[in-house]
């Protein structure tokens, strides 16, 4: 007889500030996902959410090569390691899985734009490689600042999209972008 105390799904949320990470955990929790403390301890896993840092909000001439390399390489490396650890735990469970990267689109206009684009391509490469195992990989791209809809993107906006992509409702979605920017990129 199944134990009602054992949740059907487990997930890990890495990165993000307290407000965003908290909103994502709450949204996943509302879908019945048990949030685990971290990846090294996860023996079995269904969902990984990796929230990339926005990077330094400076133009390409306003940041040193050392800071650029550390920021870009460090964050991409963290995402890569998180993906590898999560996939190992998803394989251990053998029920597929869902990886959701989150990368702010404002970075696209600043020195750390390559971080966002790097994560987009990592998303697509991982989706192609892991699709046959039923592991989906997608990226949510929140925008900030002025938007046609007349307000900024909130943590709850991002969390709702992450929860959708992570869930079975998006079971045929992989390798895809979900832009949450109030119409900014449509202009």
């Amino acid at each position, binding site marked *: 007889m199944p134990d009602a105390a054992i949740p059907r799904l487990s997930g890990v949320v890495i990165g993000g500030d307290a407000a965003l990470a908290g909103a994502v955990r709450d949204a996943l929790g509302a879908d019945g996902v048990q949030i685990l403390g971290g990846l090294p301890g996860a023996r079995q896993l269904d969902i990984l959410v990796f929230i990339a840092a926005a990077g330094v909000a400076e133009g390409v001439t306003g940041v040193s090569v050392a800071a650029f390399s550390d920021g870009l390489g460090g964050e991409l490396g963290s995402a890569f390691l998180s993906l590898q650890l999560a996939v190992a735990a998803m394989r251990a469970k053998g029920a597929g899985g869902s990886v959701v990267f989150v990368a702010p689109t404002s970075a696209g206009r600043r020195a750390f734009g390559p971080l966002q684009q790097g994560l987009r391509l990592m998303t697509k490469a991982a989706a192609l490689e892991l699709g046959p195992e039923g592991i989906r990989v997608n990226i949510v791209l929140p925008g900030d600042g002025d938007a046609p809809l007349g307000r900024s993107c909130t943590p709850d906006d991002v969390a*709702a999209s992450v929860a959708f992509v992570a869930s079975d409702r998006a079971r045929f979605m992989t390798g895809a972008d979900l*832009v*949450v920017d109030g119409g900014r990129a449509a202009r």
Partner: protein
Amino acid sequence: MIVTGATKGIGRETARLLAREGARVACTGRDRADGAAVVAEIAAEDGAAIFVPHDISSEADWRTVIGRAEAELGGVHGVVNNAGAFMVKPLTETTAPDFQYLFDINVRGAFLGVKLGFEAIARHGAGNGAIVMVSSLMGQVGFPGATAYCATKGAMTGLTKTAAIEGAAMSPPIRVNSLHPGVIWTPMITGQFGDDPALADAFAADTPLRMIGLPSYMADAILFLLGDESAHVTGIELTVDGGRGAD
């Protein structure tokens, strides 16, 4: 809610899901028998729906659909511009009338749906108005033998993004997004290529997730794009294709 092409495939599953979520749905399409069947299915699940015959390229038909939705369902919250025509022919065999036929249905039909949908949603004035354009992966990448179809789906992208910007400036705002399905097992596909399980297996083998898309998966994505969860999502292309377009 208005769902065009609700007699079959993605539209039918979407109409059923929206009705299960409590929406009153105007199901439109060309086949009256199929339309009656969808309304009966929805009624059997305690949902509310009407069928309205609809050639989406006809402005008069659109005005009839919206008039009946307003009179019989209490107004229009959203529109799912789902109906479309498909054609596979090499470019050199595609005639100008072929091209016009597809454009009239896929582009003129979607244009009328957004334009008249905006007016109807604004009249209703309830807020949270949203329109979903059901485009295709073929609106994002080329597909040999589908020049005219790809062109119509590409046109829908520009229509969607511009309407999204204008819709955002309305009060209350209206969101507009496009959904880009990969290969979905619907009458549009089986009517073109044959209703053969071996073909479904071949499509699945050619899809990174190793599965064939089902209309219900698209209905889930459309519900997301219509609802509050996507309150800050507008003007986007949402690709749900099993990973085909990621390569």
